[in-house]
């Protein structure tokens, strides 16, 4: 409504020009990179690190201190950090830059779930010739498998999100329930909590595909696959996801679980006023919650995810990101060294963990007492970091992604997400989502397995 002064013709033009910016000039399937195909020697690396260079680094993490460490170690290299507001903004800008073939950074932070979408367009540099594959042993196995796929190492892991339960011990106590060990217990506890305290045991948002995918993963499903070329697999409408949504459907229809969209104002308030008795969340959740629900300090505890069978101990990963070198970078060696340093140097990774609250991916930091021994008063003095570090080892290693997770996300919102919000038929919505994904994949020229 702001653009009132334009004529009728301009109306169309304005909407169009938005699309134009992104369209740039032509497609950019092939990249003209000075990339190495054979191994880069140490001498070459040393020479490069002694050459005055400026690197552009896009990230949504306030990462200045870690950059300082890097620049101290390699004084010839200057890093120009560009902070984008959040992941989704960064992807939009990055794709626009890639299409325009202009202003593409040397290094960019990319979530694990989006790596295939950038390798599909050949936008990432394979780090193998630079020594990327040798870093494998430093990182948690399940996480490393997210960056090394289809014959290449596409990024260096930065943070991860093993999932556990944060719960209000006071509400649970009032209802007379322990933190539930199985999903069956969880349902029974939900009943008690609702009748005794009026709170919902938890909230299932209709706008958070990654959370649902984590539940699917924990139950043993891997609904997506991609072979790195032209074949994708989509099986969201299959037995395990059906079981999972059927379970939630039951809790929703009984009014035991709320379905507020998350990361909204109403949801923040719900957390701080005890509307939800727990939040099933990833390792990046505790610090976030601490900031959001300050008034409930000391009332929260952490426990593992409920299990599908008694005696099991399986978690899933939700979120997390890596630093990738863009294929067009004119300084691939220096760019690789930056990604490697930020996410591998012990001082830098510890800083990322303790100051930026990025949950570590290196085995060393996960075992570092300077990280694990921290006691959080918000969680009644529990060693939350240590708890999540232990969960890391139990994460199901079945998560794979489609090369078009943006679409997966928006079509989730329109189908399954909408059904969750509207308390509709979740299983039918799963079928609808499946159809949308398959249609889109075919339309984009993929073979659907």
């Amino acid at each position: 409504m702001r653009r009132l002064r334009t004529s009728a013709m301009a109306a169309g033009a304005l909407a169009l020009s938005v699309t134009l910016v992104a369209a740039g000039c032509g497609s950019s399937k092939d990249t003209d990179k000075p990339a190495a195909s054979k191994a880069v020697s140490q001498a070459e690396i040393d020479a490069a690190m002694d050459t005055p260079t400026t690197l552009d680094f896009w990230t949504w993490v306030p990462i200045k201190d870690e950059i300082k460490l890097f620049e101290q170690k390699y004084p010839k290299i200057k890093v120009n950090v560009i902070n984008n507001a959040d992941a989704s903004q960064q992807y939009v800008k990055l794709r626009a830059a890639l299409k325009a073939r202009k202003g593409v950074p040397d290094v960019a932070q990319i979530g694990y779930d989006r790596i295939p979408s950038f390798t599909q367009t050949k936008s990432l540099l394979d780090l193998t010739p630079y020594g990327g594959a040798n870093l494998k042993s430093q990182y948690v196995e399940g996480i490393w498998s997210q960056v090394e796929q289809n014959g290449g190492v596409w990024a260096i892991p930065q943070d991860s999100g093993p999932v556990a339960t944060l719960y209000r011990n006071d509400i649970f106590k009032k209802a007379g329930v322990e933190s539930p060990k199985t999903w069956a217990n969880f349902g029974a506890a939900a009943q008690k909590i609702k009748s005794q305290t009026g709170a919902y045991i938890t909230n299932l948002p209709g706008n958070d595909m990654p959370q649902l995918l984590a539940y699917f993963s924990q139950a043993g499903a891997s609904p997506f696959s991609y072979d790195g070329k032209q074949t994708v697999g989509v099986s969201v409408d299959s037995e395990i996801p059906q079981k999972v949504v059927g379970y939630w459907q039951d809790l929703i229809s009984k009014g035991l679980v709320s379905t507020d969209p998350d990361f909204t104002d109403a949801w923040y308030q719900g957390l701080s006023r005890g509307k939800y008795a727990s939040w099933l969340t990833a390792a990046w959740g505790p610090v976030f919650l601490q900031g959001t629900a300050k008034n409930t300090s000391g009332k929260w505890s952490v426990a593992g995810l409920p299990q599908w069978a008694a005696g099991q101990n399986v978690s899933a990963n939700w979120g997390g990101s890596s630093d990738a070198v863009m294929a067009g970078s004119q300084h691939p060696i220096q760019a690789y060294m930056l990604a490697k340093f930020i996410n591998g140097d012990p001082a830098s990774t510890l800083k990322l963990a303790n100051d930026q609250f990025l949950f570590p991916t290196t085995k060393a930091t996960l075992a570092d007492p300077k990280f694990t021994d921290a006691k959080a008063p918000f969680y009644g003095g529990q060693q939350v970091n240590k708890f999540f570090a232990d969960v890391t080892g139990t994460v199901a290693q079945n998560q794979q992604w489609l090369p078009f997770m943006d679409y997966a996300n928006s079509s989730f919102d329109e189908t399954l997400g909408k059904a969750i919000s509207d308390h509709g038929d979740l299983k039918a919505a799963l079928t609808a989502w499946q159809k949308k994904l398959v249609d889109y994949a075919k339309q984009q020229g993929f073979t659907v397995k």
Partner: protein
Amino acid sequence: MRAGQTRTAWILVIPFLVVFTAFFIVPLGYSAYLSMFTSKLVGGEVFSGFDNYTRALHDPAFWAGMRRVVIFLLVQVPIMLGFSIALALALDSGRVRGGRVVRMLIFVPYAVPSVVATLMWGYLYGVDNGLITQLFDKAGLDAPNLLSEHTVLGSTMNIVCWEFIGYNMIVLYAALRTIPNEIYEAAEVDGAGQWRIALRIKLPALRPAILLTVIFSIIGSFQLFNEPNLLFNIAPDAVGTDFTPNLYAYNVAFKNQEINYAAAIAFLLGMVIMIVSFAVQIAANRKGRPA
């Protein structure tokens, strides 16, 4: 003489033409060009003629958005302009004490960026703890959910009214000020009261200004974007990605990465706006012709 004049005219017009071509014709042409292709993640770009347009015409998401903006147009615009006209007439009658201050106050919302306005209203609407909910709770009543799928269109109308009543009021008020005083004097001499003057002199004189605000509002309605785009963050389950055609084109371009399809949607939208605007203009002119 004449040739010289023509040359001067061209020289004066050229800067405009250059800018107009560079920032209007070329992008428009390029968009039209883009909309004729289909870009696939596998296989790249191929020429596809009018496929994108056919697809858009069969796309329920596009039509759902269209339906919403048409409802918006039919409900919100009359309410908004009704208020604007009433306020302009009231201020112009000179009977409002502190008219200047009132005028400023009514106009101020227009000066608030729509982003800020939407966020502010978003907080007021807040489902669990918003001000409106709190007031209802205090009064012991059930608070309506103003951010549900069924109410959010109305909530958006309210925001846009709040933003633009003042703006339209100023346009109309300015038009009223151009009516020569003699006419009023003559009317008063003839014994017409304020009501009669308003109905018989001011409103007819306002016709062109009203038509202008109507056209602006039609375009504005079809282009609705900022408000739903921001409300999406506050109530993602109520505002989908296809709430308005503009928002849909944006999401298709940047979330689904189908830039060609987005260009086609934008073009269709532009055409619809043109047709509706012209239709309104022609209808109004026909009626305006003296019998």
